[in-house]
């Protein structure tokens, strides 16, 4: 159980710090754009943004109730965003650490950074190529289908990167190429119509901001995972043969 404890502890520290840093970046880079988009979403009738997502004809079945709880704007909303970012950071850190341990373990911050960049490619860039980061008020295909495509793309990309980095034969690397492009050839679920009140210029800035902040988040998360993991191995002497091995 020492291995489990050490991984969870490492993930909590790395996720907490990265999530906090991400929240700071987002509060300058992405959240103002989300709030700006919400003014278009609710129409011209109200300038104070409402957080519920009344959708246009593209997704009629998915309308959020006005009466369900949501954090109040300002400090409360920021607090919940920070909590969600930290939780996401911890979850992603657990996945990164598990993958690295299965592949031999981190040797320090540098190999952590490499895994973090791979995490950005698999969980941010690849799904984002097919399903660009959305602003509130933008039409989109049915949620379940998009979530499924997102997950399949992330898993395929992660597997492809793993094959590129760790396979010995060209055939397996070829399989990696196939896994990399297959989700994009099959295509992400798209809405029937792309009309939206949200200006394209606002959306373009948002997409760039999401990828920039995500890249910093993933790089920091991986680096911290690698740096903390090598210092946190208490009780794992029961597995000496593996602890000595490292990826890079």
């Amino acid at each position: 159980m020492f291995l489990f404890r050490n991984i969870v502890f490492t993930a909590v520290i790395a996720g907490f710090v990265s999530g906090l840093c991400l929240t700071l970046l987002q509060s300058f880079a992405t959240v103002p754009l989300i709030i700006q988009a919400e003014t278009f979403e609710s129409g011209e009738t109200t300038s104070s943004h409402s957080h519920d997502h009344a959708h246009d004809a593209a997704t009629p079945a998915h309308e959020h109730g006005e009466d369900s709880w949501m954090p109040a704007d300002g400090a409360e909303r920021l607090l919940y965003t920070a909590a969600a970012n930290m939780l996401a950071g911890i979850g992603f850190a657990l996945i990164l650490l598990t993958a690295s341990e299965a592949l031999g373990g981190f040797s320090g911050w540098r190999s952590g950074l490499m895994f973090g960049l791979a995490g950005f490619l698999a969980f941010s860039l690849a799904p984002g190529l097919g399903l660009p980061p959305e602003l509130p008020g933008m039409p989109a295909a049915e949620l379940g289908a998009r979530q499924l495509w997102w997950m399949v793309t992330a898993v395929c990309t992660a597997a492809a990167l793993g094959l590129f980095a760790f396979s010995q034969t060209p055939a397996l690397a070829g399989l990696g190429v196939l896994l990399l492009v297959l989700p994009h050839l099959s295509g992400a679920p798209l809405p029937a119509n792309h009309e939206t009140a949200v200006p394209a210029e606002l959306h373009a800035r948002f997409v760039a901001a999401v990828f920039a902040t995500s890249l910093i988040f993933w790089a920091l998360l991986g680096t911290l995972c690698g740096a903390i993991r090598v210092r946190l191995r208490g009780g794992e002497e029961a597995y000496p043969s593996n602890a000595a091995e490292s990826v890079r």
Partner: protein
Amino acid sequence: MTTKTAASTLGASASRIIPLSMTAVLGLFVVGFVGFSHMEVVHNAAHDSRHSLAFPCH
């Protein structure tokens, strides 16, 4: 020799499989909860985070 190297490179000794499965499941559960849960309250709380991390949202 070859198999031993492969096994240790993969770190796949039996004693590690259970803790690593547990951390994987825990990580997937946490990410799924923050990014994919259809519960209205979770969606609203994690709203800006979901949009900013490019999760499919509403």
